[in-house]
């Protein structure tokens, strides 16, 4: 091979490596999750956060992964992320729409509602959006082993907040479960509870304690180990 050819080959190979590195960096940065900012919505020390958990998510490259969504407080659109921001020393009124069916808790201790204001949560079942099923009920324990009642959990371990997420009516879920994410129809449970954010700022991870990663060893992989699905961060701002 002649000298010019060798130099040209070297330059092409170098350029290919640089281009690959740039692509990886841009791809990584470009795929970072959005943070839904609830801090501007806080008023008189209270902020309302709305989320939903779905049996699938058809908006990502992993359509068979269960996933949480967070509602944008301004547009009311559902954002496929698990990062949200709330102010410090504020009462967070959580509303979570549970569209996914039941799975028993690996440790049934998580059936107990912990760390919420008043020590409980309220559950209202719906046949579909706008059509309630029975009356709202208050729970301090939602036993996932005595019936088909719990789909997932919402837990912020460092704040000692552990809340089981009620699943929809089983018969209705089996016949007409939501099949497109984010869910806008179908049987679901609306779970409401409140907790206080700490006085200090920081990042507080939250997670689901049901091993719900279907297709992975004991359900512990995939969405259980990936930000944007069944785990996330609560950013507490000043």
């Amino acid at each position, binding site marked *: 091979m002649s000298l010019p050819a060798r130099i040209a080959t070297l330059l092409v190979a170098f350029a290919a490596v640089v281009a690959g590195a740039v692509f990886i960096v841009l791809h990584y940065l470009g795929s970072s999750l959005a943070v839904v900012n609830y801090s501007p919505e806080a008023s008189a020390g209270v902020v309302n956060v709305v989320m939903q958990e779905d049996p699938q998510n058809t908006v990502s490259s992993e359509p068979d992964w269960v996933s949480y969504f967070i509602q944008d407080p301004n547009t009311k659109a559902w954002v496929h992320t698990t990062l949200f921001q709330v102010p410090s020393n504020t009462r967070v009124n959580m509303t979570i729409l549970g569209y996914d*069916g*039941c*799975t*028993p808790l*690996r*440790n*049934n*201790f998580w*059936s*107990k509602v*912990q760390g919420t204001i008043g020590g409980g949560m309220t559950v209202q079942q719906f046949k579909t959006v706008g059509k309630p099923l029975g009356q709202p009920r208050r729970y*301090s*324990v939602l*036993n996932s*082993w*005595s*019936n*088909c009642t719990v789909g997932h959990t919402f*837990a912020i*371990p*460092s704040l*000692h907040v*552990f809340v089981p997420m009620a699943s929809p009516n*089983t*018969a209705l*879920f*089996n016949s007409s479960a939501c099949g497109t994410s984010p869910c806008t129809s179908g049987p679901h449970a609306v779970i409401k509870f409140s907790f206080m954010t700490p006085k200090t700022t920081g990042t507080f*991870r939250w*997670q689901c*304690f049901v*091993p*719900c*990663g*279907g*297709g*992975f*060893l*004991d*359900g*512990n*992989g995939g969405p*259980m*180990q*990936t930000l944007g699905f069944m*785990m996330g961060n609560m950013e507490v701002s000043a």
Partner: protein
Amino acid sequence: MAESQAPAAPGAPEKAGPNHGMRIFLIWIVLALVADLLIWFLWYPHLPPGRMTESARHQQFDIAVLGLAAAPVMLFVWTYFGYTLINWRHRDGDDDDGPPLFGHTGIQASWIAGTAVIVLAAFVFGTVELIVPDGAGAGEGPNPVWKPSGSNVLQVQVIGQQWQFTYRYPQFGGMETTQLLLPDNRPIAFHVTSLDVIHSFWAYQLGVKADANPGVDNVAYTTTRQLGGFTVRCSELCGIWHGAMFNSGQVVTPAAFQAWATTTEAVQRRQGVLAALPPYALAYDPTVVPQLGKVYAKLGITGAAGFYYPPSDPVTP
């Protein structure tokens, strides 16, 4: 190597050189004595993991003793090295060979005897320090060899799950908490297990560390000796939030512990938490929930919905 000296005149008495061995010994003995005094009186009281439990105290003592033994050895190497650099370095104009070296039976025998004594002493010391504090706070497996005597042992089950430790107290109705509270001056038996992957229960200030394996009851003992707080960390890489798998605990007075435990048990009994928990066992198979069989059959649930995902459902990537 040798100092540059003019050759002695024939018949003149040879000038005696300095006794290097004695010099090195004297320098070393002074340095070693100072170092060991500093280790014992200044360093030892502040060594980790502290003196919160019997196992922690023994670990602190062990580190101090090993420090006492290691410092003279290390200082001897440094002293010899420094002395050599200063006294036997190459000097300008000195092109002579060094003196010939011959074997020295006494030195060789002393070296072998000395190292043998050190190793055997470390073996005996380590064995005693493992037995006396009932396993030294380490996980002894499901059939521990060294156990605390007496019947006053508080049983605490440590359950690992991605990514949180919880604690069950079988002597208090099998209640479960996210907090680890312990009474002071009481032997504790930790029964460490896991519900999913391998974790490791590391209560640093307690001097307790035991792997949490699914389906295994790994027992570790300690006896509390001080009031105060401690941290619990997972020390086995267990997933994306392994680094966040930690919480804190407290050693409180026996009266405070009794009040807390009985109150918590009563609250959990009233709320139905105790009824929801499985009967206390030394290990759990979380994929078997007998209560659910009839319920799910009645509801007509089949397939993955309502059941645990098995290891290969639907495929193991």
